[in-house]
């Protein structure tokens, strides 16, 4: 019988990061849950180091609307955050906004490198995404919009206090800078037919959204003071005068109903009541939207079904009956009522926010029974060969980020058909796995850090105008919040070829991420890695790398920091975590790093060789340390650098400065 020598240990199946080209890709939970799979840990890491422009570039790789999504995304990413079971999930959307606020959008040189022309019909999130992708690929893109301005529901549906025009325009201006032709006030189907478009363009993508409001067929619904949600919101967004009474009843339990109620409040209604079929638990509106509406003085009445708009010349109220249940056993919409329990809400104006429908009957493609456009779920082809459709007009009401995802799919499909490049579509269909919960050992070692609260208008102030409620993080607050990130999937990766099996990684890792198999083969458990970089910094064989960090990249950053350096220039490597950096006199360039371990001994010496008068390690302090164990290693490294420079007679060219008295400090960056 052979002797079993290579007994594998129990973590055998856990080797996500093995260098196996066939293995499925691993995304952090936030990235996996994002419908467009934005590299969240990548941009959060950049923000943690104050690199907002880098962060913005990472976001724009997958999401052309960072300023928009940074404000109004329903953020499925945050529900997956592995900090959820430690304290609070990371404020991912708010960080995205800070990237758009403080980062510089790239300067594009529009250059249509291909002959093919594509028409995009509708300029909501899906249409903007299609135009962005196709223009980037080199097609000539024309964007058709029915309304006078671009943005679709982002402009005409979402109120300014949540998404100001200035933020939307920032994203749109960038997208248009790719060289996209725009035709507004053109309704396809009426002003120009689909066939005419098909003659002029190689492909047509319809992203018309859901433009029709659904009203309830109840008595009194035709009174003058009974309004539909979308025209109401559009008029408010266009700053057109709208006559509403002091008492407004809004019917509906979704986010649109909340927008309508809060808009009515800002237009002067003092008594706004919201009535919906669903119980508080069933309401489709997101919890914080409901909460904010209530804080603005809106009364929410659940489990009531509208029966009649009561009135004579004008509206006097809405009569409702008790709703017993909304859905049947098969979870289909089939409300039941107790007609004996009747109530009347007094109202001067009633606004229905009870669903939206597509309004594309005149375009001429095959529709679904619900009136949307029928499209292949994989390629988004419609019934007409060269016509594609994407977004809510295909899927029914979804989130903005879902519409962006659909836009990517449509453009990938167009690129495959027109340019013969299927790689983008294949990439969208590739599966990914993710990490599980934070292991127990790690939980005990991580200090709880609550989310950095964002400054916002007080609600009594907010209802007086359409000013944006959320003020946004400052650069400093954004960096602090980003530093809470656990860096899922950005941690250690091992090159088997280079590994000398020295076990140093096992000895320095505070979370027991590295494991050893019999035979001395190492592997890393990504669930236990917070990307502190301790192992990578100590690995003598340089077999361990961190995602998003390399010596080459650090050298490049040093080069940028030292641009036009003089003989007196000092380079300060500053820990991003510290609240206060010591003041150093002279020409000091600061390079912020998530941990000083990222500044290797080699890098420090290289910086000195390339002309820096002195290198400073700043802000490595116990009180603000994210990676307590790494701190010890930073100090060991500083000692080694000091010893080497002393032997070379250059002891005055390196210095470690810690925390100093408050009055002697400057702000981060």
């Amino acid at each position, binding site marked *: 019988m052979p002797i079993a020598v290579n007994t594998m240990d129990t973590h055998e199946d856990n080797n996500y990061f093995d260098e196996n080209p066939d293995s499925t890709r691993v995304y952090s939970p936030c990235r996996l849950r994002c419908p467009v799979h934005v590299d969240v840990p990548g941009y959060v890491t950049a923000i943690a180091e104050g690199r907002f422009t880098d962060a913005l570039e990472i976001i724009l790789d997958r999401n052309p609307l960072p300023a928009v999504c940074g404000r109004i995304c329903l953020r499925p990413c945050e529900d997956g955050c592995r900090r959820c079971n430690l304290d609070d999930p990371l404020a991912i959307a708010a960080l995205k906004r800070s990237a758009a606020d403080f980062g510089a959008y790239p300067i594009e040189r529009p250059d249509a490198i291909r002959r093919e022309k594509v028409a995009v019909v509708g300029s909501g999130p899906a249409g903007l995404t299609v135009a962005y992708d196709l223009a980037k690929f080199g097609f000539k893109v024309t964007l058709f919009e029915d309304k006078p301005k671009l943005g679709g529901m982002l402009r005409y549906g979402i109120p300014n206090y949540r998404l100001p025009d200035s933020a939307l325009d920032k994203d749109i201006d960038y997208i248009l800078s790719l060289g996209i032709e725009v035709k507004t006030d053109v309704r396809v189907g009426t002003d120009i037919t689909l066939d005419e478009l098909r003659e002029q363009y190689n492909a047509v993508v319809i992203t018309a959204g859901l433009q029709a409001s659904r009203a309830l067929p109840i008595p009194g619904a035709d009174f003058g003071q009974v309004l539909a949600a979308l025209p109401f919101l559009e008029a408010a967004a266009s700053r057109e005068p709208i006559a509403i009474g002091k008492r407004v009843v809004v019917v509906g339990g979704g986010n649109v109903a909340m927008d309508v109620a809060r808009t009515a409040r800002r237009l002067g209604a003092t008594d706004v009541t919201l009535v919906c079929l669903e119980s508080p638990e069933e309401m489709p509106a997101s919890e914080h939207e409901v909460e904010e509406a209530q804080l603005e003085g809106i009364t929410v009445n659940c489990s009531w079904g509208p029966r009649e708009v009561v009135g004579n010349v004008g509206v006097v109220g809405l009569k409702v009956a008790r709703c017993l249940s909304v859905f049947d056993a098969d979870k289909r919409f089939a409300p039941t009522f107790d007609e004996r329990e009747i109530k009347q809400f007094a109202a001067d104006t009633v606004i229905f926010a009870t669903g939206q429908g597509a309004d594309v009957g005149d375009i001429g493609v095959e529709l679904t029974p619900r009136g949307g456009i029928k499209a292949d779920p994989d390629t988004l082809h419609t019934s007409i060969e060269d016509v594609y459709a994407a977004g809510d007009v295909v899927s029914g009401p979804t989130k903005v980020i879902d519409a962006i995802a659909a836009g990517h799919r449509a453009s990938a499909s167009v690129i495959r058909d027109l340019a013969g490049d299927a790689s983008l579509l294949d990439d969208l269909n590739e599966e990914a796995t993710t990490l599980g919960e934070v292991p127990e050992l790690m939980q005990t070692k991580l200090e709880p850090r609550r989310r950095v609260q964002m400054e916002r208008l007080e609600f009594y102030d907010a209802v007086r105008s359409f000013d944006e409620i959320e003020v946004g993080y400052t650069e400093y607050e954004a960096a602090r919040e980003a530093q809470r990130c656990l860096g899922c999937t950005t941690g250690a990766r091992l090159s088997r070829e*280079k590994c*000398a*099996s*020295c*076990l*140093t990684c096992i*000895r*320095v890792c505070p979370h027991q991420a590295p494991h050893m198999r019999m035979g001395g083969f190492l592997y890393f458990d990504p669930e236990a890695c917070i990307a502190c970089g301790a192992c990578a910094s*100590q*690995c*003598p*064989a*340089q077999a361990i790398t961190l995602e998003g960090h390399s*010596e080459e990249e650090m050298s490049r950053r040093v080069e940028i920091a030292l641009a036009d350096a003089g003989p007196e220039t000092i380079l300060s490597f500053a820990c991003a975590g510290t609240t206060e950096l010591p003041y150093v006199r002279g020409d000091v360039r600061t390079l912020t790093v998530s941990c000083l371990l990222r500044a*290797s*001994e*080699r890098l420090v*010496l*290289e910086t*000195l*060789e390339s002309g820096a008068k002195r290198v400073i390690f700043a802000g490595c302090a116990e009180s603000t340390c994210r990676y307590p164990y790494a701190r010890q290693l930073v100090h060991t490294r500083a000692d080694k650098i000091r010893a*080497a420079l002393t*032997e*070379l*007679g*250059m002891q005055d060219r390196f210095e470690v400065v810690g925390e100093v008295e408050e009055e002697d400090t400057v702000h981060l960056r």
Partner: protein
Amino acid sequence: MIVVRQKPLKEIVKAVAPYRRILLVGCNTCAAVSLAGGELEVDTLVQTLRLASSQEGTGSVFEGAVLQRQCEPEFIEKLEIDDCDALLSLGCGAGVALLADNVDIPVIPALDTMFIGSAKGLASWRAECSACGSCVLGETAGICPITRCAKGILNGPCGGVNDGMCELGDRECAWVLIHDRLAKLHREDEFETTHEPKDYSVKTKNPEWDAHARGGDR
């Protein structure tokens, strides 16, 4: 494992001073595990020497390479020396020697070879073996008196022991450790055995040794 450590920087700078193109050669076996001769240390030393050279204005060029093991001719064959005029080896003595055997340019050691040792923890080792050529660990319960006793005596402890410590003050008395371990293993009576003087000539008779001719020199 063979434990090595870097020589004082001043010594290295002085030794490479006469040469203009120097290739630093690391070793990804013992020297890497000793945290003194892997890619990290090669890159760091290359950069240190570049800095020193730019300070002095010598214009010397430093590059780095790492071999899997410097003590094997087959690995050395892979080394591209190009137009270097000296090699700086970050390997143990065997690596330096075999490199020097295989190239026609000077080979300078950057490390000192310390001992055959075991790992105690992060960046920490203990000398365990002096490669004496006739092992006594079987009689001494796995604790080498040649290595761990300051005098290397075969019948200890000597009169310098004080409360379990060697009179040098930097280590425990190897013979007290041997006694305690033997006692723990119920082999106390073996402590009475007097060891004959070792025949150190087995190590010096012929420095070349061939497994196929094993036993010939014993």
